[in-house]
C-alpha cells in the first residue's frame, strides 16, 4: 500500500496523513483521523449519513477520496459544539424536539441542515424538506427533524 501525503484542515486543526489514493474521505476521517462521528450507511452516495462540509458545502464523504481534499477545509459533526462543550443550536434543537432516535443518520442531517441555514437563515418547511431530501432516516419519519431545523433557524436568528 502506497500512501500519498496530504494536509487538510479538519474542524479547525491541520491534519496530515498518508492515505492510499483509493481511500475515501469517510474512511480517512474515521480510521486515520479518529473522527468516528461521520457514519457510513450505504457507501454509494444515497443515504447521506456520511455528509460533511468541505469549504462550507455539503459533500458525501463516501464519494470523495481523501487525497482530493488536500488543502481544503473539512467540517464534521465533532466540530459543531463549542470547545467548552456547549451545543450548536441545531444540536440543541434536535435534542429538544426529539429529532433523533438511533442517531446513526444524525451527523449527516446536522451537516446538511448547517449548510442550509448558512445559505438561507429563513427557510420555510418546504425548503427544509428539500434541503434534507438527500438524507435518509428510518427512525423518525422526519417530522421532528424538520421541526428541529425550523426551530434552530429561529434560535440562530435571535443570537
Amino acid at each position, binding site marked *: 500500500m502506497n500512501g500519498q501525503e496530504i494536509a487538510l484542515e479538519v474542524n479547525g486543526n491541520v491534519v496530515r496523513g498518508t492515505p492510499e489514493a483509493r481511500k475515501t474521505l469517510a474512511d480517512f476521517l474515521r480510521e486515520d483521523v479518529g473522527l468516528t*462521528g461521520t*457514519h457510513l450507511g450505504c457507501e454509494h452516495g444515497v443515504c447521506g449519513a456520511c455528509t460533511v462540509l468541505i469549504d462550507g458545502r455539503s459533500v458525501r464523504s463516501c464519494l470523495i477520496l481523501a487525497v482530493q481534499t488536500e488543502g481544503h477545509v473539512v467540517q464534521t459533526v465533532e466540530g459543531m459544539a463549542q470547545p467548552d462543550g456547549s451545543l450548536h443550536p441545531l444540536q440543541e434543537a434536535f435534542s429538544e424536539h426529539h429529532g433523533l432516535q*438511533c*442517531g*446513526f443518520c444524525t451527523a449527516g442531517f446536522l451537516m446538511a441542515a448547517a449548510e442550509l441555514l448558512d445559505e438561507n437563515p429563513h427557510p420555510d418547511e418546504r425548503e427544509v424538506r428539500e434541503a434534507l*431530501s438527500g438524507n435518509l432516516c428510518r*427512525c423518525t*419519519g422526519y417530522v421532528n427533524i*424538520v421541526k428541529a431545523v425550523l426551530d434552530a433557524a429561529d434560535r440562530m436568528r435571535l443570537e
Partner: protein
Amino acid sequence: MKPLLEELPELARPRSVGTKVRRREDARLLTGQATHVGDMHLPDMLHVAMVRSPFAHARIVSIDLDVARTAEGVVGVYTSSDLDGKVSAFVESAREDLSPKLAELVDIEVKSLPMSVFASDRVFWVGQPVAAVVATDPYLAEDAVALIDVDYDPLPSLVDVEGALEEGAQVLHPELGNNVHSHLLVECGDVDRALAGAEHRLRERLEIGRQISSAIEPRGVLATFDGSELTIWATNTKPHLVRTIVSRMLDLPADRVRFVSPDMGGSFGGGIFSEEILIPFLATELQRPVRWIEDRRENLLATSHGRDQIHDVEIGFQGDGTVVALRDRYLMDTGAYNTYAVTVPYNTVAHMRSQYRIDHFSVDGTVVVTTKAPAVPVRGAGRPEATFVIERSMDMVARELGLDRAEVRRRNLIRPEEMPYDMGIPYRDTVRMTYEPADFPAQLEAALEAFDYEGWLERQRVARAEGRRIGIGIAAFVEGSGHGPFEDAIVRVDEGGRVTVISGARPHGQGHETMLSQVVADQLGMDPENVIVRTGDTSLLPDGRGSFASRTAVMAGNAAAMAAAKLRQKILRAAGEMLDADPDELTLRDGSIFRGASDAVLALRQVAVSAAPGPTSQRPPGDGEGLVETHHFVPPTATFGSGTHVVAVEVDGETGGVRILDYITVDECGTMLNPTIVEGQVHGGVAHGIGNALLEEAVYDEDGQPLTTTYMDYLLPTTMDVPPIRVGHQTFPSDRNPLGAKGVGEGGAVAAPAAVISAVEDALGPGAVRLTRIPLGPERIVGAIRKADAGTDPSRRVDG
C-alpha cells in the same frame, strides 16, 4: 386469566413516568461521541470480507483459494470445510420462544431445517455466504474476495411461491419432503356455515411484496478471544440469545461468552445471522480481534427480508355491512430458510381480525421455501400483512354495499361494553387471546374528528369536480406486545448512594436508557438523571431477552420497576433496622430517608454502607445481600395496544405520484412512559408504512437475481414522501403489567400501508378499481388509472 402480580410490592406513584423527559442518549449521538461496532478499534484487529453466492441455486463444484491466500494482507481464508466439526448448524432461533403447547391447541407443523454458517455443496440464494477472507485491512480483504474462484454449476431457481407447491416442482431441501417449511390452521366458530348463511360473499387475492428492514447502520460484528473468554460486540437486539447460540454452536461454556451492546443504528426487525457465529469463531481460531462490517449491498441482498405473503380471503357479510365470517388461505415466501418458525405467520393469524368482531374465522397459512434470502420478522412482523387483509376487506364491503367506509367499520368494531373480548383462539404464547378494556369506536370517532372527515369528504367532492384525484383512507390496527417469555433486571445502590439499573433491554433508538431511568427513579423517589443505566451486557445480568417485538416498555420497563420497588422496601427495612423504626413509617426521597413528617433522618448512602454484608452489617435478618434486588418479570400474556389511522392523498394522474396531504393517528398504548418517545415511535412507524405502501420492494427476477441491491433501487421514504403526522392518544392502562404499558414500536408500520392504499384507491374514483397489492408504485398506479378510465372493476362475488 390468573390474577396478576399479587405478591409484588405496590408501585410508588409516578413522578417521572408519563412526562416528556429529554433523552439522555442524545448528547453522545449529537456530538459524534457514540460508539458503534464500526467505530471500535482494538489492537491487532483483523477485518473480514465475505464471498457470497452470485446464483440463486447452484452446486458448488470447487473453490480455489490459492491466489487469495497469498494476497497482500491476507491472514486466512475460510469456507465450510474449515468449520466442520467445530461449528454446529443453526437451528431455528425462534424455537426458543415457541411453546410446544401451541401445537396441542391449534393445527401447526414446523419442520426442522438447520442452516449452516457457510453453504457447503449447494447455494440457495444470491447473497448466501460461501467463504470469508480475513485480512489486516478491510480494503485488502475486499481485494482478496475478488481473487477467490468459485466454480458453480447453476441449478434452476425457484422464485414463484405457488409454483413451489405444484406437483412435480423441484424440492429444494430434500429433508423437508416438499417445499413447505411450516403450516398452521387456526379456526374458531363455524366458518363454512357462517359463509353459507351470509347475505353477501366476496373473495379477493391480496399480496404484500417482499420488504427489507434496512436500518441505516449496516450490521457489524466484532469479537475477541483471550484464550478462554470470547467477547462479542454486535448489531444484534438479542444479547443473551446470541450468547446462548454462540455458546451452543462453538461449544463454549455460556459464561465464557460475553455479548456487549455498543450503540446501534436501528434494527426494524432481524434475526441471528451467519456472521454473528462466524466472526466469534474466527476470533477463537486466530486469537486476535476480528471484525466484519456489512456494506449496503450485502444488507439489501441478505439481511432482514420479510413480509412476502399472498392471501386468498373470503368474507361473508350482511346487507347492513356486518361481517359474519372470514376465511383466509395464505402463502408466505420465507426464502431459502426459516429461522423464525411461525413467529410471523402466527402474528398474521392473530392480528387479522384487528378491532373487529368476526366470530367465524379460519386461517390456513403455509410457509414455503424458495431461492430468495431467508425471511425474518420486519417491523410489524406479520401484522401489516394481516391489517392489509382485514382493512381491504372492510373497504370491499363498503364498495359492494355502497356504504361509507367509516360507517362499515363502525358497524363491525368490538364495543367497549364487550371487553374483555375473547377472540376465540390462542395467542402465540398459548393463552386465549383476549382484548383488554379499550374503546375502539371512540378511537375511530376521535381519529375522524381530528382528521375532519366530513370536511375532507367535501374537499374531495370539490376536487373531483375540478378533475383532481383526492382520496381518503382509513385503517385500524391492534398490536399484541409484551407476551414474554420474560425479562430480567437488577437494581442496586452503591456505598455512595448511587443507583444503577442493569437491564436485559438492548436499546437501538427507542430511548430505553431514558425510559429505564424514569421507571427506576420513580420507585426510589429520585430524579431520573441520577440513575445509572447499563444494558445489553450479558456479563452483568445472568439472563435476559433483549429488545424486539415492541416489548421493551412492557418487559424491561416492568422488570426494572419491580426490582426498584422491591429495593425501595429493602432500603426502608435496612433503615428501620438502623433507626429501630417500623419501615412503614419511613419514606425514601431524593437520596434520603424520612421518618413521618420529619426532616431527613438518614442519607441513602448511610443505609447502603450499613446494609452492606460483612461483620459491621446492620441489615435485617433475611436480607442476605446488600442493597440489590433482582426481578424476573413474566407477564400473564400479551397486552394489546391499538390505533386508527386516517389519511388524505392526492394522486397525479399523469405520473402516478402520490402526495400525502394529511395524516392522523390516534394511538392507544396504555400508560405512556414517555410521551415524546411514544410519538417518535408512531412517526417512524408511519413513515416505514408509507415506504412499504408506495416505495419499498425487494424484487427478484425469474432467475432469482435480486434487482434491488442499492438505495437507488430499494427506495426508503425521504422528507419529500413523509408528511407531518398528527398523533392523538387514548389511554387504557394495561392490567397485565404493573406499569400499565403496552408496546407501540410497530403500530405505525402496521396500519399505514392499509390506510395509504385505501386512500389511493379512493382517489381513483368511487368503485373504479380494486388495489390489491403493496407496494403500489407509480407504474401500478398509472396502470390502475387506465383500468379505471376504461370502465368498472367489478368485485369478485362468490355465489351461494
